[in-house]
C-alpha cells in the first residue's frame, strides 16, 4: 500500500469530563473518498476541527503527506493542502464568485490585485474538475447548489489536495446531490482525497470507498463500502440493531381541521408564502418536503401563530385562525418549532416552567395571576416521566438538557393536555437510545376514551433535526400515535426520508409555493426532487 496522504494517530480531545475523540487513528489514501459516519455528537465535527486547526488535540499526531502538521493552526492546514467545505457556507453574498475565491488567498500588502491571473486560474480549476461557474456572478444570486460549488472551488483554488466536506448534501435536492457525487468522482480520479462527513447511510455507501464509523467519540468500525450493508452501518452507528420507522398508513381520515386558501405572507425575503392552499384533515399526516428557506418557516410560523397572512384565508375548525400562540394553544394546536434552543424553550428558565409555559394562564396552573406551583410542577414531573426527559430534574435550567431531551420536553408540553387519558397509554414507551420494537399503530395508539385531550392539530417543523436515531424514532412514533388518535398532523422537514416515511400525503415547497398534496405513493424520490428544484410534475423537465 502506498504511503497515506493523511495519517491521524491516537487523536484524543476532551472537553471537561466529555471525551469527544478517544484515541482515533485513521489513514487516508490518495484518490480515496473516506466517509466519516456517526450520529450527532459522535465526534465527527470535533475530529475535522482538529484536523483543520480549529481545535488543538490533547493527544495524538497528524501527518499530511508525511510531514507532521502543527496543531491549532488553520493556516498551516491550508498550506499543507487541506481544504474544508463547511455545512454553513462562508461566502460573502454581495461579492462576486471571483472575489469570494480570491478573498483571503491574496497577500494583504501588494499594490495591485492580480484579478486577471486569478480569473484564469479559477477557470482552469473549474474546467479541470468539471465545476462550471460564472466568475462575475454575485454569490447572493446563486442557488444553494451553486454556492456549494463556489465553496469547493475556493478550496481547490488554494491548492487543496485533501478536501473535507461537512454534511454537504444537507442543503441539496436529490438531483443536486447526484451532481455533487459525480464531481467528487472526477476529483478523486485526478488524485485528490476526500473526507465526506454524513449521518445518512445511503449516500455514504453511494459515494465513498471506505467508511469509518464514530460512536461516542470512539472509532468503532472501519470497512470498505463495497460489501457493507446499511443495516450493518446503522448497527455500528447506534450500537445495536435498528430499523427505520416503517410507514403506517392512516386508516381513515376525517374532517378538515385546518384549511389554507391562497395564503400569502409579506416580507421575510425568500422565506414567504406565495398563494399556498392546503387542507389538513383529522387522522392524517401531511408532510412538506423542500430545500430549507423556500417558505417552510413562514408556513410553520403561520400555523404556530407567530406570523399573520397578508392575503388569503386560514380556517381552523370553521373559524378564522388567529395569529396568536395563546389562542392556538387553547384551541388544541400542538406546536413543535424548528429551532428548539432559540424558540422552543427559554433556556434560562427551569424545566418545569418551560413545561407549563404555554398553559400558564389556564385555571389549572394559575389563579388570579398567582402561579399554582404545586399543580405546575406536578404537570412538569408527569411530562418528564412519561416522555422520559433525562439529564435534569424539573428544577434545573432547560438549557442543560441535550437536544433530544429538550425535544421530548417540547413534545410533551405540546401533546400532554390537562386531561390525563391520552397519557395513560404512553407510559410504556422506551427511553431515548433504546431499541424500538416495531409494532403496528395499535400498540402505540393512545386510548381514544371520551374526554381524552388529543390535539386537534399538530404542527411539527423539523421535529427530528439533529436528534440521534433513538430519539428520531421516538418523536416519529409520537406523531404517528397522535395521528391515529385523530389529530391532523403537519410535518415540515428537510429530510426527504422522513417526509416519505411519515407522510400520508406529501407536498413539496419551492419559492413560497406548494404543490398539491398527493398521496405518498404518488411520489417517487425523483419526482419529489424535481419539485424541490421548482420543476412541476407533468411539465417536461
Amino acid at each position, binding site marked *: 500500500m502506498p504511503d497515506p496522504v493523511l495519517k491521524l494517530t491516537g487523536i484524543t480531545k476532551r*472537553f*471537561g*469530563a*466529555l471525551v469527544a475523540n478517544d484515541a482515533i487513528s485513521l489513514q487516508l489514501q490518495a484518490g480515496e473518498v473516506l466517509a466519516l459516519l456517526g450520529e450527532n455528537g459522535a465526534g465527527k465535527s470535533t475530529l475535522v476541527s482538529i484536523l483543520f486547526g*480549529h*481545535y*488543538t488535540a490533547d493527544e495524538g499526531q497528524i501527518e499530511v503527506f508525511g510531514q507532521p502538521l502543527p496543531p*491549532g493552526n488553520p493556516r498551516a492546514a491550508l498550506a499543507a493542502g487541506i481544504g474544508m467545505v463547511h455545512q454553513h457556507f462562508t461566502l460573502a453574498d454581495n461579492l462576486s464568485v471571483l472575489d469570494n475565491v480570491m478573498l483571503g488567498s491574496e497577500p494583504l500588502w501588494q499594490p495591485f490585485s492580480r484579478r486577471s491571473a486569478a480569473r484564469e486560474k479559477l477557470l482552469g480549476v473549474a474546467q479541470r474538475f468539471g465545476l462550471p461557474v460564472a466568475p462575475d456572478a454575485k454569490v447572493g444570486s446563486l442557488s444553494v447548489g451553486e454556492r456549494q460549488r463556489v465553496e469547493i472551488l475556493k478550496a481547490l483554488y488554494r491548492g487543496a489536495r485533501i478536501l473535507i466536506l461537512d454534511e454537504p448534501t444537507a442543503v441539496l435536492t436529490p438531483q443536486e446531490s447526484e451532481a455533487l457525487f459525480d464531481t467528487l468522482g472526477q476529483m478523486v480520479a485526478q488524485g485528490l482525497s476526500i473526507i465526506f462527513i454524513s449521518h445518512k447511510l445511503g449516500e455514504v455507501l453511494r459515494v465513498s470507498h471506505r467508511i469509518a464509523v464514530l460512536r461516542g467519540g470512539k472509532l468503532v468500525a472501519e470497512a470498505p463500502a463495497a460489501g457493507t450493508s446499511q443495516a450493518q452501518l446503522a448497527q455500528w452507528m447506534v450500537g445495536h440493531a435498528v430499523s427505520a420507522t416503517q410507514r403506517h398508513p392512516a386508516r381513515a381520515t376525517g374532517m378538515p381541521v385546518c384549511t389554507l386558501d391562497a395564503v400569502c405572507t409579506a416580507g421575510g425575503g425568500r422565506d414567504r408564502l406565495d398563494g399556498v392552499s392546503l387542507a389538513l384533515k383529522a387522522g392524517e399526516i401531511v408532510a412538506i418536503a423542500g430545500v430549507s428557506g423556500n417558505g417552510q418557516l413562514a408556513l410553520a410560523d403561520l400555523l*404556530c*401563530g*407567530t406570523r399573520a397572512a397578508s392575503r388569503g384565508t386560514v380556517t381552523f375548525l370553521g373559524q378564522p385562525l388567529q395569529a*396568536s*400562540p*395563546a389562542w392556538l*394553544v387553547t384551541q388544541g394546536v400542538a*406546536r413543535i*418549532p424548528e429551532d428548539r434552543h*432559540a*424558540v*422552543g*424553550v*427559554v*433556556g*434560562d*428558565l427551569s424545566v418545569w*416552567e*418551560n413545561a407549563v*409555559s*404555554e398553559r*400558564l*394562564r389556564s385555571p389549572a396552573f*394559575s389563579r388570579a*395571576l*398567582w*402561579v399554582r*406551583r404545586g399543580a405546575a410542577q406536578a404537570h412538569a414531573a408527569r411530562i418528564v416521566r412519561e416522555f422520559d426527559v433525562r439529564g435534569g430534574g424539573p428544577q434545573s435550567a432547560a438549557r442543560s438538557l441535550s437536544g433530544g431531551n429538550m425535544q421530548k420536553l417540547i413534545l410533551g408540553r405540546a401533546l400532554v393536555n390537562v386531561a390525563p387519558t391520552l397519557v395513560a397509554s404512553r407510559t410504556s414507551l422506551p427511553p431515548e437510545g433504546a431499541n424500538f420494537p416495531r409494532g403496528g399503530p395499535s400498540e402505540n395508539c393512545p386510548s381514544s376514551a371520551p374526554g381524552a385531550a388529543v390535539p386537534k392539530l399538530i404542527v411539527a417543523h423539523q421535529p427530528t433535526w439533529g436528534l440521534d436515531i433513538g430519539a428520531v424514532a421516538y418523536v416519529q412514533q409520537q406523531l404517528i400515535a397522535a395521528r391515529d388518535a385523530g389529530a391532523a398532523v403537519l410535518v415540515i422537514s428537510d429530510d426527504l426520508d422522513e417526509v416519505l416515511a411519515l407522510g400520508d400525503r406529501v407536498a413539496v415547497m419551492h419559492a413560497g409555493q406548494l404543490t398539491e398534496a398527493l398521496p405518498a405513493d404518488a411520489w417517487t424520490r425523483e419526482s419529489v426532487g424535481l419539485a424541490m428544484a421548482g420543476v412541476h410534475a407533468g411539465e417536461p423537465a
Partner: protein
Amino acid sequence: MRLEKRTQTSKLALVLAPIGAIAFTLVISGLLVIWAGAPLGQTYSLLFKGGFGSVFALSETLTRAIPLILTGLAATVAFKARLFNIGAEGQLYAGALAAVAVGGMHGGTGFDLPLWLLFGLMMLAAALAGALLLLGPALLKARLGVDEVVTTLLLNFIMLLFVSMMLNGPMKDPTAMGWPQSVALIGDLELSKLVAQTRIHTGLLWAITLAVALWALMKYTVPGFDIRATGANAKAAAFAGVPVTRTVVLVALLSGGLAGLAGAIEVAGRTSYVTLDMSPGYGYTGIVIAMLAALNPLGVLAAAVFVAGVLVGADSMSRAVGVPTYIADVIVATSLISVLVATLMTQYRVVRGLRS
C-alpha cells in the same frame, strides 16, 4: 487563555465567589489608599466605622440606602426583562416634582382632601410620573426597535433641564431667597422618623415592602414569569404565548414607577422640597446595585446597604485621613466588576491554550 463552560458548579464556589470578590476589591482599593499616603488599616477601619460603626453611622447609611433600594429595584425589574432603563435618575426627579405638585402646590389647603387621600395621591402621582417617563422609550423599543439605552439616558438630561425650569418658574419657592428650590410639602405629608435624633424615616419600610413584593411578583406570579421569559428569550416567550409587548409596557410602568417613588420618598422623608442636587446620581447607582444583587430584589436590599455604607463611611473617613471620597466610587465600581467576574468564574473555568 480561554474560557470553558463548567459542567457543574460546586456549592463552595458559590459561597467563595462573593468573598473573593470583596477581598479583591479591598486589595485594589488598598493600593490606592497607600498611594494616597494614608495608613491602610486606619483608613479601612474609619471607613467601616463611618458607615456601620455607630447608631448614628448606621442610621445615615440606612437613610442613604432608601432611595438606592428603590432605584435598584427599578433597574432590577427592567433589566430582568432586558429593558435597559438608564433613565431612573430622570424618573426619580419626575416623581419628586409630581409629589411636590400634589403635596405642596395647593396653597396650604391640601385641596381640602383628607390627609390619607392626599398622601396616596402624592405617591400615585409620583409613581405615574416616573412610569410615564419610561413608557415612551419602552413603546419606541417594542414597536420600532429604538434603542432604549439611548432614549432613557438622554431623557435624564431633558428631565434635569425641565426640573431647572420648574424650580425657577411655576414651582419656585418664593421664600427661598432666590435659591432654585421648589415649594415644600405641607408638614403633615412628611414621613415620620423611625428613630428619634436620626434622619432615618419610614421610607425604609416602604422600600423593604416593595422589595419583598417585587420578589414575590417575579417568583410566584404569571406576570413575573412573563417578565423573566421575555428577558431570557423574547422569541421563545412569544412562541409560548407570552404577550411580549404588553409585558414590556408593564415592566416600564413598574420600573419607572419605582424610580418615581424613590423621588417622592426622598422629598417626603428627607428634603421636603425639590432641588437640582437632591440626587447625587441615585438613578445610576441603582444600576450598579441591581447588578451587584444579580437582579434579585431581596439582594438589592443588601447591595444598597453595602453601597450606602461605603458612600457614607468614605465621607467621614476622608475628613480624618485625607483620602479623597472618590475612594468610595472606586470601591463600589471595583466590587461590581469583581462580583461580575467571580460570578462568571462560577460558571466557566480558565483553560490555558489556544481556542477550543
